[in-house]
């Protein structure tokens, strides 16, 4: 199966994934505010940890734009739970675990090594892709690109109102 990343201006593929043991998150339910989807290869590996810990620390900045941040990897819910506790991560980490990597594939972000690529998507209030970015696996992309995209979304909405 060839994978394709959803393009700018396209509706992001909808999905429902486990966010905790016994709890699901449905992307469509987050409509009405911007959403940041952060695919990453694995819990516990050094770069990812920095990236997710950084997003937690940067949460007040994301919240200025009302943005909901969501992390996604192929790790299971119990692994996510232990990882989130260890790093003090409070935003949802979704388990793209069964069928493995299915959502990552639908976002053109599933790697040959069986993990998600380090791909970022910013969705607008309507769930449309407003910005996307793919980093090499060893590079933590930081938060500046996301915040610039969220700022641009805010300006676009001011123009419309």
């Amino acid at each position: 199966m060839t994978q394709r990343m959803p393009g700018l201006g396209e509706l992001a593929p909808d999905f429902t994934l486990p966010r905790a043991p016994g709890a699901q998150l449905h992307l469509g339910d987050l409509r009405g505010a911007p959403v940041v989807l952060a695919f990453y290869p694995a819990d516990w590996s050094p770069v990812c940890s920095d990236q997710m810990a950084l997003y937690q620390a940067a949460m007040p900045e994301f919240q200025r734009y009302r943005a909901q941040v969501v992390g996604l990897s192929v790790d299971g819910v119990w692994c996510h739970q232990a990882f989130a506790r260890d790093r003090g991560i409070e935003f949802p980490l979704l388990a793209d675990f069964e069928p493995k990597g299915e959502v990552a594939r639908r976002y053109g972000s599933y790697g040959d090594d069986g993990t998600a690529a380090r791909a970022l998507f910013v969705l607008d209030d309507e769930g449309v892709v407003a910005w996307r970015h793919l980093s090499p696996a060893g590079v933590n992309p930081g938060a500046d690109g996301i915040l610039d995209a969220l700022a641009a979304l805010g300006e676009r909405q001011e123009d419309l109102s």
Partner: protein
Amino acid sequence: MNGMTPWQEEEAGRLRQPLTDDDHVLGPPEAPATLVEYGDFQCPYCGAAHLVLKELLRRRPQTVRLVFRHFPLTNVHPNAEVAAEMSEAAAVRGTFWPMHDWLFSHQDKLDPPHLATGADRVGLPVQEVEQELNGHSYRDRVQRDFVSGIRSGVNGTPTFFLNGVRHDGGYDLVTLSSAVDAAAAAAVR
């Protein structure tokens, strides 16, 4: 536009917040190289870099000045924020750098009781400073640095900017010295 190529090269980050009077600067103002560090007092990598930076400043006293900005990752380093605020309490009393050095030399002792010892060692009025810290008088100051770092693409600590451009190489003495020399040479030319 749909111009994203997978596995694109990351462009070198740029410092978005220029130096201000609020910044903590060590070294001569006319130095041709300015090294800005975004750091966290509880981060072991910053602790290692601290020793390298001291030696770098000793070897290049006319070439480089160091600027320290706060980037506490509090969810991973629970004492990083209070340590950063303590350094600001020292800064308003003119002793930022002695406090900064004490903090990096006592990274395993950054809990509030030990911090009080450090404050005393640096000559701060301990009770007064503790009151300020309990009232979070310096939280906004620390947060300003953190936000400017986030906006400049800081993705972990320490992150360095050399004359405004992110230094993505290593921060051992040899690598940093040659990077500083190159930046200084480019600035003077």
